[in-house]
């Protein structure tokens, strides 16, 4: 993945534009796009959050980058008060065939379901302590669920002496996030035909946030497998 991105960057004719911007100013930055954009490399990623902008102003770094060309922000990059990078990520994972509006509606509907069930539980709870324990914010529940679903290790197939071993090893933060969201969605899609996606997704999120359910079990299974295969760990470097 990362290699691809680097290759794509090379494809963009950089020299043709280099006379516009002095060499000194070209800042290498991490790019999130999957395919080439029409913007050359020295175009900065937009800073669209008010907090980030305030931070820039405070640290007096704004004048330094004020004159640099900036790429336009994408649709999901808003300064809205309820912007959440994890939510946009999940929406993108839910999306099929580029139907983003649909994906967004599904996720928001799931949030609504979570909220309704939690509020109901809140009203059922008798003591204020029990009430205080109940998490009402669906976004926080999503964050918690993803955090709980994230694996800490992974198994890599490595061939030694004609035999493929499942070798445990560390996992990158990015891949662990990817696996967590993927597992959540896979668990959601194992449902009856009559159950709608938002309902099932809401249940899965609530389960995962409680550290129970299919997804957490899957993570624990993986960890157990890694533990069992720890004897192969040296194959990673031998």
């Amino acid at each position, binding site marked *: 993945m990362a290699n691809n991105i680097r290759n794509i960057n090379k494809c963009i004719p950089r020299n043709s534009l280099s006379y516009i911007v002095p060499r000194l100013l070209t800042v290498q930055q991490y790019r999130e796009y999957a395919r080439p954009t029409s913007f050359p490399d020295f175009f900065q990623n937009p800073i669209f959050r008010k907090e980030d902008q305030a931070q820039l102003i405070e640290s007096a770094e704004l004048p330094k980058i004020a004159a640099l060309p900036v790429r336009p922000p994408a649709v999901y990059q808003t300064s*809205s*008060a*309820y912007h959440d990078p994890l939510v946009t990520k999940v929406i993108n994972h839910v999306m099929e065939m580029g139907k983003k509006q649909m994906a967004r509606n599904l*996720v*928001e*509907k799931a*949030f*609504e379901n979570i*909220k*309704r069930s939690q*509020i*109901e539980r*809140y*009203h059922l709870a008798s003591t204020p302590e029990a009430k205080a324990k109940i998490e*009402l*914010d*669906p976004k926080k529940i999503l964050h918690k669920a993803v955090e709980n679903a994230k694996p800490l290790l992974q198994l890599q197939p490595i061939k030694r002496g004609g035999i493929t071993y499942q070798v445990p090893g560390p996992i990158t933060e990015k891949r662990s996030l990817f696996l967590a969201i993927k597992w959540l969605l896979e668990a959601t899609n194992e449902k009856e035909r009559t159950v709608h996606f938002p309902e099932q997704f809401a249940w899965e999120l609530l389960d995962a946030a409680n550290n129970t359910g299919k997804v957490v079990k899957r993570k624990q299974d993986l960890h157990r497998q890694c533990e069992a295969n720890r004897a192969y760990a040296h194959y990673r470097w031998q």
Partner: protein
Amino acid sequence: MLSRNWRHLCRRYSQAVNFRTTENSPAQHNDKQEGLFYTINPDLCKQLFAHGGFPRSFMKQTKTFTETAIMVRQPALDLLACIKASDMSQPVIRYVLYGEKGTGKSITLAHLLHYAHEEGFLIVHVPWVSEWLRRVPRHKEMSNSQTHEGFVDLPLDAAAWLIHFKSQNQTLLKSGELKTSKQYVWSKRETTEAGSPLAALVEHGISRVKYACDVVDALIDEIKILSNAKQCKTFVAIDGFNSFFYPLTRLNTPTKRKVKPEEVTLTTSFMKITTNDWNNGAVVVTADQLAFPDDHQESYLPRYLLYKKGFEHLDPFVPIEVGRYSDKEFISCVNYYRDRLWLRGPPEIEAELKFTSASNPYRFMEQCAPL
């Protein structure tokens, strides 16, 4: 400077927790309660709206909020003032509620129904006309009318409406003061004698579903006669009234012929009660875009929705617009939602929601949902 003032105002309003009124009787509502929420007693709510009356999304909210609270809004107050000011011995005045989608026409109607119930009106309430004419579930009961040539009966719908009517007017029907004026002969063995209570007529319609449509027709006639005789005062509320005037319904006769709304017996009955040839009552109908198919929703104004026919049928009527939230109402609603845990988050979210929802009540509620 301006923005600071505005923010200051916002803060002042959000600190004011006064979004509820303890005045739970709609008859006492006046401008002081404008923009405030009042709660309806759950038993009464069940009696009035168990068989429809609130939109489905609102019903869901009442469950989540564990209460039924309605905001006292300007159109409802306006209508109440008009009903109070009107002379009951005069021909009935027709009121038409209109407004954009999701601005609260049905809720306003529910508010008025509560008022009518409290004031002892006999309530003739149709929760949603499109339920009869435009919604075709798999088993839609339809038959050709026995009494009216070339007409179509919807017996199950009519019987369901009679149950609704019965539950809404429990107290009035139980007292048994309302009597039929003439004898109705349904078949060789079944007759309803003149002078029998109205409840008997209704019961007959419910138990003998075959005659439900004819019973509705007879009931409407009786109600008009009773109102004219000052034995009761009648409040007619029909939601989605414009559905009666759309050129075609979704119903098909067994011979696959499209049915026009005026060929349905229920239509003729409710057309009769919305004319102004009787007195001692009030008629409130809504003209709603949602009662029409998607390709005929360009405007929300009454002439467009009622067609020429409907306009001439109702004319002269009093159009009353149900609009979006005013600033005051919006802030009150925000506070209510915060109180009911429906809306959380920092205060700047409110300004944002106000702009994205354009102060449309339904859209505001929807946009709060995932937050």
